[in-house]
């Protein structure tokens, strides 16, 4: 982490797209990418939790990024995709619209969250990278999975 910060050339991101916005997840946090199949809903769970699914014998808790960010549900009928992550010994799948390339970005294109960003976004975003054609919002995995913030979405 310290090295990465010092080394100008170093951070890798898995890019994903949700509701037209490009997001980046730190490469080392991403375990795998899979299509969420056989999702079982959890009654009485916060709305951000999309359900549970079986990924090669392990139970994965799926979290809907749209819900987490307070965005409207997917409506284009496309197949969503999940980014597998491990946190505190449990598996999570962050459901996004599309997965893009892996980018290596320099520290120099990084900026802190714009001050006028929506509160729900600032909770989970760790800053912005200026890319050539668009902006990539860096998602902070720990914060995305911080369940104390769940259930706040109306």
């Amino acid at each position, binding site marked *: 982490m310290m090295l990465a910060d010092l080394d100008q050339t170093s951070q890798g991101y898995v890019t994903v797209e949700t509701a037209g916005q490009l997001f980046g997840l730190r490469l080392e946090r991403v375990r795998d990418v899979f299509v969420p199949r056989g999702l*079982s809903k959890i009654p009485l*769970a*916060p709305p951000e*939790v999309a359900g*549970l699914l079986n990924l090669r*014998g392990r139970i994965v*808790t799926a979290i809907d990024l749209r819900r987490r960010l307070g965005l409207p549900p997917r409506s284009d009928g496309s197949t969503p995709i999940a980014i597998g992550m491990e946190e505190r010994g449990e598996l*999570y799948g962050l459901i996004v619209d599309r997965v893009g390339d892996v980018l290596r970005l320099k520290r120099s294109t990084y900026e802190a969250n714009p001050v006028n960003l929506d509160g729900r976004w600032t909770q989970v975003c760790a800053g912005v990278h200026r890319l050539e054609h668009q902006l990539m919002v860096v998602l902070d995995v720990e914060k995305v999975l911080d369940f104390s913030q769940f259930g706040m979405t109306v």
Partner: protein
Amino acid sequence: MDELLGEFLTETNEGLDQLDVELVRFEQDPNNAEMLNTIFRLVHTVKGTCGFLGLARLAKLAHAAETLMGQYRDGAPVTVEGVSVILKSIDRIKQILEGLERDGVEPQGSDADLIGKLQALALSEDAVFAPGEAGLEDDRLSVHAALDDLERAWRAAPGPEEHFELPELDGSGDANPRESHARAQTVRVSVDTLEHLMTTVSELVLTRNQLLDLVRRTGESEFKSPLQRLSTVTAELQEGIMKARMQPIANAWQKLPRLVRELSLELDKKIDLDMIGADTELDRQVLEMIKDPLTHMIRNSADHGIESPAERVRNGKSEVGRIKLSAYQQGGYIVIEVADDGRGLDAERIRAKAHETGLASLSELDRLNDSDTFKFIFRPGFSTANAVSSVSGRGVGMDVVRNNIELIGGTVELKSTSQAGTTFVIKIPLTLAIMAALIVEAAGHRFAIPQFSVVELVRTGNTSSHRVEVINDTAVLRLRDKLLPLLDLAQLLKLEDAGTTFDRIADKVLTALVIQTGARLFGVLVDFVFRTEEIVVKPMSSLVRHVSMFSGNTILGDGSVIMIIDPNALGSSAGALDVQAEAVKSFAASAQAATENKTALLLFRAGTPSLKAVPLSLITRLEGIPLSSIERCNGEDVVQYRGALMPLVYVETEAGKGGDDVQPVLVLTEGDFHVGLAVDEIVDIVEEQLTIELEAEAPGIIGAAIVKGKAVEMVDVSHYLGRGLGQRLAGKAEEALRAVRLLLIDDSQFFRSMLAPLLAARGYEVTLAGSAEEALALKDKGVVFDLIVSDLDMPGMDGIALAERLKADPTWGKTPLIALSSHSNPRLIERSRAAGFVNYVGKFDRQKLIHAIEDCCRQWGAAA
């Protein structure tokens, strides 16, 4: 953390737990050479390894302890004080180890206090035990020699890992059969590795199931026989892994000998702890869960069960009390028994306490046998300890024990014989990781419900004899003449497309699972039950752990993930119902015991599709009144009836709703006034023994009862009478002057409502009181009655106590009292007479009550 340090911590912790046990035994049997060896070895290991790893604080403390123990080894007399200080030092070592584990370095602090004590003791031992003075017996000499060998071996040992290589000193000691046998063949495996293996095997099972499914669908195939083999091997593998997760129950018992030792010192009792079946194996998860309950039960036995030595001798018992802890396997369960040979439970004291805390009334308690009475100790807040000791008696005990055990699907029972002791029998499943569960579906979602909690399955539906009925939006299940609160799973879990319970029961055959958790019995409504399956329990994701309804999740054979429902959580959501159910049970029992008398009931429908009923005795006539003759007068509907205007009161309905142009009306009479109760449809008149099953809060409804196998709502006539009479009550008051003034005291709203109109119809002026206290308040206000009818069995002050209070009063003391009771218990009758009641009437015996009242009026000239 340094790998070596990690290793050290694991081994030392295990060693220390062992040490606790050994020291307590050593104190009782100071000449046991084998035991002394073990203890010395353990302390020595700690000391040696600490020096090696540069842990100065630990090394110093261990050294001081070792010095004192060295003296014991050399034959110095073992003192209670010495052992206590060593135990304390071990505690301190544990604390330091915890800090070490947390931070990787020894925590700051000084152990001068303990080291000082250890040294002082060592010095005094020196003084007492001058070398050469004690006549060393032969066997001790040999021990001595062996220990020297041992010590040499120790000093030669290069590192901490090697201490397991120690030569067995002699095979005769039974100090530690498990360890000494197991040592050569065991490998230390981390829990994570085991869990991972378990997961992998679960996946293998799933894959196998999928393959089996595939082959089944394609019919004959050359895969069939290899698949069969795969299947067998998988099952074996699964079993093997399950076994690897097992640990001897001794791990949960390790701390108990020391606990008992400390308790006996603290309580000044002599207590032996016997442990039998320590090698019985249990899943490690279960093991963790029973540690606390066991500790608590041992504590209880030592504190409440075992008597003081003096008392034991007086009762002809041995001075030393015994607590026997045993474990054995029985089917898929492990049975653990905690038995003491103490004084046993005191049924009378439990009864007294149960009454005092309002858990049950005296008459209920009279009917309970001792073993039922004992069950009160599992109720929250129940403790019969006269004084709160530091050990127990705070009343936060056995209920928690029971809850913890039930949480893992176990049960706890107790047997107790006065003066012979108490035995608790705990039955727990072998493992939590795999359990039998029913797979059910509700509103398109599948769930698993642990099978141990399910008592029976009942198919419900309109065609079934087990009908689901709805009272005031609450579903109940009629099951063999009992109403069971019914939870609708789809509703409870707020599932989408669930629809209302009412709609669901209307057009489908559903299944109700009858579930028992602790004292609670309730039904859970589901769409179907698929099958029973052995499921592998996986913990809930921490994101949804707060959803208390689920205890975990599992992967089914088809690969889908489903939730496992926690029956206890269901039970608590049935909580409100539960209170009712318990009240109902005792209520129903008392009603049963009271009388065989049947009550004639009029069944009708009004407003809702459910049946309603009123006691027929309250109704003067049934009339069909043409809708055209209903007039509106003064804001009320009235009809001309026997030359007067009769107000019509609609029971949750409106005129003509029955679909006919004749309005069915139940005519009630109070004094000279008639009131018409307008209903939709008169259904039947039945004679039934009336048992109110559920008391309702809704106005106008007293409760629910089963009549002819159907749930019916009992209508509170007085509610409607009040509405019908309105201002006329004022006029009635004059008339009442001539009437006998009667006070009816009964805690049951139902009885008050049933008896009041009945008595009023006979021309008595009835005042109602819901409790003895209310009656006394009336007395204090100076209200005077001619006759008092009181229930005997009331919460708070009961009828007998009330009668005794009233005797002293100059006016009320002369008023004749009639006792009402739901029991015909000769003892109670006797007591009521003694208290001043002139007559005693069974609660359900209306005729007899009327006669008794009439008799009273004649005899006492009360009305005059």
